[in-house]
């Protein structure tokens, strides 16, 4: 199972429709400070169901919607779609390819979609249960985590062990 495509529009600094295609090997993402690399990581977490805005460096979920620049007005919606190749049939579905999408409107209204059809957040969580791919799995590693896992806040460390058990 691997991620084959990420589509974003209106998500953080990705105001315009953006598409990234991934191979199932090693992909590197590079660019200057502030250009949007970590925002791509936030988009993946968000579309997989992340509920805590603080994990996405935002005070409220509304802040992930493109908030405008000198040349562009703020947008009214953020949408991210992630295409997953289900080649090893790890996901409990007959589809060989699954597209998970999430939309957020400034009104606060939220939508989740599976293969472009609306569903509940619950359906997405159930789909990824036990695949190690849920929003709070340990599949995203950043420097701040290094400090947490080694410091004596053994709770974080314990939490990871329990997830694996």
């Amino acid at each position, binding site marked *: 199972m*691997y*991620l084959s495509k990420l589509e974003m529009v209106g998500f*953080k*600094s*990705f*105001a*315009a429709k*953006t598409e*990234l*295609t*991934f*191979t*199932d*090997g*090693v*992909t*590197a*993402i*590079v*660019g*200057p400070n*502030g*250009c*949007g690399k*970590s*925002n*791509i*990581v936030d988009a*993946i977490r968000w579309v997989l169901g992340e509920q805590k805005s603080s994990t996405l460096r935002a005070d409220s979920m509304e802040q992930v919607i493109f908030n*405008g*620049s*000198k*040349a*562009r007005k703020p947008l009214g919606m953020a949408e991210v779609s992630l295409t997953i190749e289900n080649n090893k049939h*790890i996901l409990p579905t007959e589809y060989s390819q699954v597209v998970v999408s999430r939309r957020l409107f400034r009104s606060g209204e939220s939508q989740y979609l599976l293969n472009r059809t609306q569903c509940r957040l619950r359906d997405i969580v159930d789909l990824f249960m036990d*695949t*190690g*791919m849920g929003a709070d*799995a*340990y*599949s*995203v*590693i*950043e*420097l701040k*985590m*290094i*400090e947490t*896992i*080694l410091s*004596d806040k*053994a709770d974080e*460390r*314990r939490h*990871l*062990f*329990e*997830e*694996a*058990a």
Partner: protein
Amino acid sequence: AREKFSATFDRIRENFIELFKVLFTEDDEADLRMTDSEDPLECTIEIEAKPRGKRPHSIEMLSGGEKTLTAIALLFAIYLVKPSPFCILDEVDAPLDDANIDRYLKLIRKFSNNTQFLMITHNKKTMEAADTLYGVTMEEQAVSKTVSVRLSGTPATA
């Protein structure tokens, strides 16, 4: 549940001891201990690192780069027990020196048979180790766009 946790802990511990030697050297040792094996669900899990030639001491005394490698060894030790189909690493290589980045990339390459990696980096060695490279830019003020980059450094067709 207690037994399940203890069994998992033992597997993570074995992986950790082995991965530590891969990221450091054969002469370096590390260990994972439960402070109270009678109470696995509540006690603290301690990490002991003993880089070669040095007396064992708390991991707090390790250097920035050594701590990063130790944490990577532990995170991958856990991951081996319950593999995730993908792993995103955001600038985790920043504190590492050249020699350690080589070891780190070798480990990534080894795991990449079963796991897809997405690495955000400023480091040239990491870029060269990748199969695909995406550049992110903000040509238009405050708006990000991506461009697929050929490993020679020239952008691929837009």
